[in-house]
């Protein structure tokens, strides 16, 4: 690859094109030029330019149109507008159509060199940002694989040895000992399952989750989730009250992931409940949806934290502190719910408690299961 910066000039005035070429001559540039928009657009496709100068006023298609078309082809291309009719409004217009900067005619060689350098710098930064973003995405994917190996391998080894131990002792175990084995195995299994579901989400392949969708009973998944968190609730003496409509309809989804969402919401509700508190789980059919809500009477969430709590792993600026208490659980929950084309919402009043509501669209009759 040559190290010269490639610059494309689109201007109908020969004298402008020539003088621009002369100004840059001798520098590390390779220059191509076109005398109208159509020829310019054709060149854009093959020249692999780092920077484009576009005259606004040209016969045939206008500079504005050229800007728009180039932007549509590749929004990362850096374009500078040249014009003899420099007005604020035309400058704003050009910027709106994707121009990076504006050079009024007539200009001095120094002005042209300066704007060329700035445009090229902008291009370099744009490419760098793109590369960084790509790298970040790859890191996230790699992270998923690292997590999977580093977390799953030790857990599998522990569980396998537990299996072995129980297998060898099986005849000598008292029922109470057997129960301890069962308890440990179940919790370990849930942990492994959870890592698996997290992985699905982290690797951003919600599509995969959808591949396994089948008919799921919301009621069953709620009971399963409550069973799972019951021991934690008992430790804080938190009571879980349920009101589940009998006419709740089955939905199309992934049972394990939905259980995980409910376990997550219940887990948070318990965590932020006071000792001896109460959690109310309500599930009802409403319109075309099953609405499941989890209401606690705990410490609540402050209004400025509220918008950030679902950000979790992907949290934005300033969200870090606000969301830290909730970890990545809510973010994962939201992604799972959204994969089911549902929604998850929260209402909260500090000091009084929070209500998380999950809405899942019903399985329509005749829909493939």
């Amino acid at each position, binding site marked *: 690859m040559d190290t010269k910066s490639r610059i494309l000039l689109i201007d109908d005035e020969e004298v402008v094109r020539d003088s621009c070429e002369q100004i840059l001559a001798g520098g590390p540039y390779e220059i191509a030029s076109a005398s109208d928009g159509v020829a310019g657009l054709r060149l854009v496709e093959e020249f692999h330019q780092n920077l484009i100068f576009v005259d606004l006023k040209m016969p045939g298609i206008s500079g504005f149109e050229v800007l728009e078309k180039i932007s549509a082809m590749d929004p990362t291309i850096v374009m500078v507008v040249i014009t003899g009719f420099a007005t604020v409004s035309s400058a704003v217009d050009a910027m709106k159509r994707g121009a990076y900067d504006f050079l009024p005619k007539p200009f001095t060689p120094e002005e042209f060199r300066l704007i060329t350098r700035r445009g090229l710098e902008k291009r370099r930064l744009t490419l760098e940002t793109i590369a960084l973003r790509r790298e970040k995405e790859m890191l996230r994917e790699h992270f998923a*694989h690292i997590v*999977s*190996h580093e977390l*799953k*391998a*030790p*857990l*599998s*080894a*522990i*569980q*396998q*040895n*537990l*299996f*072995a131990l*129980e*297998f*060898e002792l099986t005849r000598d175990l008292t029922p109470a000992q057997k129960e301890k084995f069962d308890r440990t195995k179940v919790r370990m299994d849930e942990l*492994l399952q959870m890592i*698996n579901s997290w*992985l*699905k989400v982290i690797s951003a392949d919600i599509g*995969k989750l959808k591949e396994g969708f089948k008919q799921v009973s919301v009621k069953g998944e709620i009971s399963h989730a409550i069973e799972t968190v019951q021991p934690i609730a008992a430790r804080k003496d938190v009571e879980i009250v349920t009101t589940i409509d009998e006419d709740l309809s089955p939905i199309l989804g992934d049972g394990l992931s939905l259980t995980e969402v409910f376990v997550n919401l219940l887990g948070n509700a318990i965590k932020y409940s006071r000792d001896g508190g109460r959690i109310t789980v309500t599930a009802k059919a409403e319109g075309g949806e099953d609405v499941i809500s989890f209401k606690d009477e705990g410490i609540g969430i402050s209004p400025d934290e509220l918008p950030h709590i679902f950000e979790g792993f992907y949290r934005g600026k300033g969200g870090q502190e606000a969301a830290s208490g909730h970890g990545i659980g809510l973010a994962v929950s939201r992604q799972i719910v959204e994969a089911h084309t549902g929604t998850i919402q929260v209402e909260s009043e500090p000091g009084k408690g929070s209500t998380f509501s999950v809405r899942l669209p019903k399985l329509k009759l005749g829909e493939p299961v």
Partner: protein
Amino acid sequence: MTKRLLMIDDDPDFVAGIKSILDSAGEFEVDVAYNPKDGLKALQTREYDLLLLDIMMGRGAEGVMIARKLRKDPKLREMPVLIITGMREQIAFLFPGEPIHPRFVEVDELVEKPVEPKLLLEKVKSLIKTAEARKVNP
């Protein structure tokens, strides 16, 4: 008659869990290799009735490489292979067509780590049985 098994897996703790289940069944003699190289060497030096094979070892999916080598080896081609992997989901891409059936290396079965003792013994026994029937009646 005691069956001879080889397990290739780079996690000694996991191996210990599997081996002790197989040992206490009283029907198997289990050799272990903790890396692909030792595993291939063992396969060349002794005769085994079944191979228990991990996929993710060393720098990547080295278990796949072992399975491929076996199927090209006229002496070892018929040996049943049970893949025991923690990465069933992640290595699904290696199994074109169906997500689970490991057709690409034509191994016999695939189970996910950790594996329940009952399932493990069931798979091991049935794979050996099928392989023996194949030998008698090819």
